[in-house]
């Protein structure tokens, strides 16, 4: 039963891609609103991700992969399968991290540094421009069919951990999320429709 529901959701997402891919529009803030509106329409989303972390302290990038799920209005779940199983759930202002040997709950208010890593993705998926503008200065480039949203943190506390978030998308699909940190470290997350069971 559960898998059938999920496959229905997945089909919905795929058909949404089919719909939106054919549209074209001029590049201005109306497009941003249109993209946001399309994103806001979606109640659920489910994609696979591959994330690479480029950290100066390490000799070579570390790679992780798994699945990203979104449920309107504010639940984001990042399920990492490799290299180590970890489930990260963001609901409201609470981030819970669950691993094989336990679960940790973080209140994001206590850790403003963590906020941009998760809120940039969640607020974009929610099509919540206001939430994005609370944390970031927004810069939109491209058109509805292929766009790039660049987010620059406003608050100094947040700036300490993230200097810029760049999200590439097509229609209501997110394709790539790149997060740059002030020390030059960065992460790159590539998304594609989920094929996981």
């Amino acid at each position, binding site marked *: 039963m559960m898998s059938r529901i999920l496959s229905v959701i997945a089909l919905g997402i795929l058909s949404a891609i089919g719909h939106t891919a054919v549209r074209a529009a001029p590049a201005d803030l109306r497009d941003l609103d249109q993209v946001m509106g399309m994103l806001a329409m979606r109640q659920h989303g489910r994609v696979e991700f591959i994330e690479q972390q480029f950290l100066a302290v*390490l000799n*070579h990038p570390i790679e992780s992969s798994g699945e990203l799920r979104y449920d309107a209005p504010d639940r984001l779940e990042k399920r990492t399968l490799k290299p180590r199983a970890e489930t990260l759930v963001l609901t409201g202002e609470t981030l819970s991290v669950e691993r094989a040997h336990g679960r940790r709950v973080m209140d994001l208010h*206590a850790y403003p540094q963590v906020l941009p890593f998760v809120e940039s993705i969640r607020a974009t998926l929610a099509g919540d421009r206001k939430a994005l503008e609370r944390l970031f200065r927004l810069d939109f480039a491209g058109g509805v069919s292929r766009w790039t949203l660049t987010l620059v943190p406003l608050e100094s506390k947040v700036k300490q951990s993230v200097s810029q978030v760049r999200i590439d998308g097509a229609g209501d699909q997110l394709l790539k999320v790149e997060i740059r940190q002030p020390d030059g470290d960065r992460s790159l997350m590539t998304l594609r429709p989920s094929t996981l069971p």
Partner: protein
Amino acid sequence: MNVRRARVLIVWLGCVAIAILVVARAHYITDLSAFLPAHPTPTQQLLVDQLRDGPASRLILIAIEQGDSASRTRVSTGLVERLRKDPQFSSVNNGEAVAGQRDREFLFQHRYLLSETVNAQRFTAAGLSDAIRETIDNLASPAGLLFKSLLPRDPTGELLNIIDQLGRSPAPESHDGVWISADGTRALAVAQTAASGSDSDAQARAIDAIRAAFAAAAGESPQGAANSVQLRLSGPGVFAVAARAKIERAAVRLSIASSILVVTLLLLVYRSLPALGLGLLPVATGALVGIAAVALGFGAVHGITLGFGITLIGESVDYSIYFFVQSRQAAGGVAAGSWQQSWWPTIRLGMLTSVCGFASLLPSGFPGLKQLGLYSISGLIAAALVTRHVLPALLPAGFAIRDVTPLGLKVGALLRRVQDLSGRTILLGGAVLVALALGVLYHDRESLWNRELSALSPISTDEQNYDAKLRADLGAADVRDLVIVSGPDVESILRGAERAARALQSLVDGKIIGGFENPAAYLPSMATQESRRSSLPSAADLRANLSQALQGLPLRADRLQPFLEDIEATRHVALVTPRDLAGTSMRAGFDALILHQKDQWNALLPLRSAVAGGTIDIRQVVAALKDSGVDEAQVLDLKQESDALYGNYLAEAIHFSLAGFLALTALLLIALRSPLRVARVLAPLVLAVLTVAAGLAIAGVRLSILHLVGMLLIVAVGSNYALFFDRQANSAEAGDEALTLAALVIANASTVIGFGLLSFSQIPVLVALGTTVAPGTFLALLFAATGFRAARSAHA
């Protein structure tokens, strides 16, 4: 005659003076020790200590309600900021990080002494490789990224381990950094008082401080929204303070109200002020002597004993009513002499049966009941003696009360209708009633008695539910099950706590318990710290192990130079002592779990159930501790233990009451010398008790120890009624029947009024007493009248 009269008055006044002296100098206690055993077993002693001084007893749960979410958050922040400066509180928490910087510095500085994962294996090549690999994996998650900058100094992630080991309890929900209830309608905070929970005065001051801080915090917020924000407090100390105020208020109010009603009733009946004044003398003397006897017998008088003084009024007012009404002669004067001869023996017998009943409270292990027993016995005897000797001596010449014969005649006419029924019909009716009552009681036998201590709590179910809701929202705050490790000093109990924690961790892994707190998680024992320190390798060894460990990992050894330096420094650093915790938020956590009493130290490890609101199988905890050889640890289920304690009292009280009933039967057998007469006297009482018990059961009330006391009172008061009817039926010179009936009806009316009022109280113990005694004594009178009527009509 006059000499005798003077002698009686002198003795009486002397006794009253002594009693006043004793009462004035007596020590009164209002804490919960009335409910605690006088001679506790070691486990009970732990329970008593926990209830009095344990961390659970010192919690005040704070809820901020109404208004909008933003103003609740603002007020919560302002409130907590103020309370944290108040030395009355050992800790105040609303989810906002306290001294975060100081905490992190402390934990980071001492990480190799505090982290549970530090051992010799940790710093071998294999151990380092595993630990560093995990740290690198953590960097892939945003949470782990927080620790990125620490990697060169802490590549094995000890800080994260310590934070994990401290933060194992589930955190409440929060919004804007402040704890909120699951439904989001309340902002929550928890304060722990420095003073113990049994210190009601200190608790009252702490509560006032919270209210003042709340008012100040709400006052400084922008107008409008913040004005509507409400404060609500809960917790043991809050309950104790509220209960004390409530009982004091209720006792005063009810005493005044019942006095007014009884006085009005007596005035209506007597139509004579002197009679009223004289009529209250036995009660007043009885109450005074009762308190004095308790003070002399126990050294201190419990508030609860004073609160139940009203129970005496019911019966001892009766004595003077009997005296005035029955000694009234047709001529209108009072013939005290003939009353003493013809009526006193019956009253004396009634009084002695009551004493038999109350004597069953004396052997109870429950100090509150013991005192109540002594109070009632000495008060009753004093009241009866005053009625017998002092009232006749004080009667002014020409004293007369209104003739109550008409009242008696009316009652008699009512009862005469019963006469039309045959004795067999009445017997049958009685038998049917008994069968019905027994049927109901048998049907409800499992749930008949409430064996939980909360049955005695003056806290309403609403308040208890609210408390439970706050606790559920706050997660771990409900300290019900505890492991207690005792020893002569801090070091020994911390070692014990560490051993107990290992056993408990296996239960957590097995999902038998959800988790536990542990003072050694804040501050490990010296022995543990020492073994961790000595497990740190020398710089050369560490360097060698590290270069081996890093093979295949994306990390270069030269980046970890700060790690090598920190390890080397820790090898020569002093161990952490409780004093070093000062200024950190770990201090409050540690202090809350350490209890120091006289020459004994206790480490407390509160357990959390595996599912929220679930229960813990204590036997498995005991077994796990035993298997691990932690002999100095004891497991305490506060609720079960206190319920067991109360259950014991209850079972004991039931047994003693039955024994008291047997003694009373024996007394009647000796006095009346006829099993049939004894049966006739007792039958209405037993029937009344059964009917009331069945009625309460039908109403869904579960009987508590106070209901039992109420049943004793039914028997005590009702025995007087039955004995009068018995006297009427068996004495040749029975006197005026109408007067007897009038006296009984007036006496019963005053009892029903006095106890009926208790039923309207908000305090469960008083309600229990009122709802048992008021209907019970009325039924006892009704059944006795009917029964003896029927018996007489059968004879006729």
